[in-house]
């Protein structure tokens, strides 16, 4: 009888310990989950703001202005569009012409460098 009682008491103590442990653990986890949920919400809001910002920065008006200013681009003209067949019909430069053009292009920076050395 006494043994049984002792075992039961032991069980009660152990169980209550486990339960309290669990309870506190779950409370902590809940708090953490709430925190994370809030953080996710905050991040989501921040993402929404950044996406809006991104779209705002990519609005056509701004891109056009920047492209004109920094890249020297202009709206595409129909005459600048070719089909492959049309391209083939155009007389292609001979290898000698290509070489001449490339040499001409290479020569310039070289001469500039020489000028700087002098």
């Amino acid at each position: 009888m006494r043994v049984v009682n002792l075992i039961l008491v032991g069980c009660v103590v152990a169980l209550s310990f486990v339960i309290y442990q669990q309870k506190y653990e779950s409370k902590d986890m809940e708090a953490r989950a709430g925190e994370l949920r809030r953080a996710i919400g905050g991040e989501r809001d921040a993402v929404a703001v950044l996406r809006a910002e991104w779209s705002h920065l990519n609005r056509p008006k701004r891109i056009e202005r920047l492209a004109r200013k920094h890249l020297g681009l202009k709206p595409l003209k129909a005459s600048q569009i070719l089909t492959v067949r049309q391209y083939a019909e155009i007389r292609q430069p001979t290898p000698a012409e290509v070489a001449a053009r490339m040499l001409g292009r290479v020569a310039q920076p070289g001469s500039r460098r020489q000028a700087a050395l002098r």
Partner: protein
Amino acid sequence: MGFIRKHLAFRRDAAHKRRTQARAGVMSLAFALAFTVIGVRLGALGFAPGEAGPSAKWSTLSTAVSRSDIVDRKGRILATDIQTGSLFADPSRVVDVDTTAEQLSTVLTNVNARALRKRLTGGGKFLWIARGLTPRQQAQIHELGLPGLDFVREPRRVYPAGATASHILGYVNVDNQGLAGMERYVDRQPGAVSTGGKKNVKRLPVRLAMDLSVQYAVREELLSAMERYKAKAAVGIVLDVHSGEIIALSSLPDYDPNKREEALKKDRFNRASSGVFELGSVFKVFTTAGALDMGVTSLDKGYDASKPIKVASFTINDFYGKKRWLSVPEIFIYSSNIGSAKMALDMGVTRHKAFLGKLGLLDRMATEMGPTARPILPKKWGRLNSMTIAYGHGLSVTPLHLASAAAALVNGGYKIKPTFLERSREDAAGQSDRVIKLQTSDLMRYLLRLNVQKGSGKQSDTAGYRVGGKTGTAQKVVNGRYSGTKLLNTYLGVFPMDAPEYLVLVVLDEPERVKETGGIATAGVNSAPTVGRIIERIGPMLGVTPVMEKGRQNPDAPVAASY
């Protein structure tokens, strides 16, 4: 002796034991009861849901609606929600009304200190002070450290592209509810909006047919046209003639939907769908198409246009009178009122009216934004009405009506309901009825191209894009009479004419006779070149392959191919 003593002791022990047992029983019952109570309570507490955070409590205060994003056909964001702070006060907790009002008005420029003081002294428990504040303003107010103030997080609608697509998007009110345009459409979609700060709901964006790049190009060209020709207002529409998708729609002057108070100004309404106009000679496309489709005339027939038509006290005359017999193509490219009126008479009033009705020009048109304005028809449609409507006077429709009806003339003959939402050409074909024969549509393509090559539409021609089109120079009604100087100029352009894909409509309101146009102000010199410039810009965006005519082949091409 010892035995007795032993016996007595036993008896004493037995009595003692009985009493002890009874006492222990009562005690254990009491303990059992107490522990049960504690256990039950503990269990109940354990199962109770975790306490709600403060945000859950506050969000119920917000009356603002969370909304689906609106994106263009390529997924670029046109409208989205961001979370902002809204400031409210609990007047019963405000300590010093004067300081509070004074200091708040320094941070919030649109808050009047005197008005706020009055509202704060009015008592109560809840008072909105300002909604949709930026994080910076929130921080500033926080630093003031005034008691009785607090923030609610609320969604607020922002439009990253600003005014570019204003009339398609519409706008929302202070509670984020859609009041106009596609924002109103979003409100009526199940699941697209929710209240009470339920912001973690996943919502699909509403995808429009509009292409932001095209929309931007159209608006820019309209703006520069308004400036160049000193017009009061302008409308531009780009429509896919096969799918009925509205690729761009701009009505100027417009507004920035981020500043909704701008939208309420009187002249900022959407002229493309809410304004009805007598659009003038551009209506001859319908007269010609009707007459050709019914077989009452053909391209090799013609009409005598040498003399004005007199009906009672009314005279129908030609703008650029040729004073001779004109063939049907000539009537079209010289825009002869006399010839068109005679064509309408050949059709007969009933058939003419029925044909226009079939094209949808006589009824309100339903769109996702809600119905367009109602066309204004003559009260009694007689012979004279048919004759004037033949060249676009006496029937007022919206520019959207014109674009949608004209699409049927060039797309092979199908009346397609225009849409602001994405739709495939196959889907559109399944929902559309044939209104004219394929041959008639082919003839109309020929006539429209001819008018650009030889007639009033010359200035709309853009190298490579095979533009076709028809002008309309309508005199505006001022004080009940047609004005000689106030014009409404329309140009209906379609490209490429060998297999039409897109329709571009431009309407300019009261363009003036400016130097650049040689002192004249007809549609051929202002609306037509505007359409030409628009097509030149949007052609590449829409993937229409330019074809250069023989002889003037690709002057820039060798440059483009060099390296």
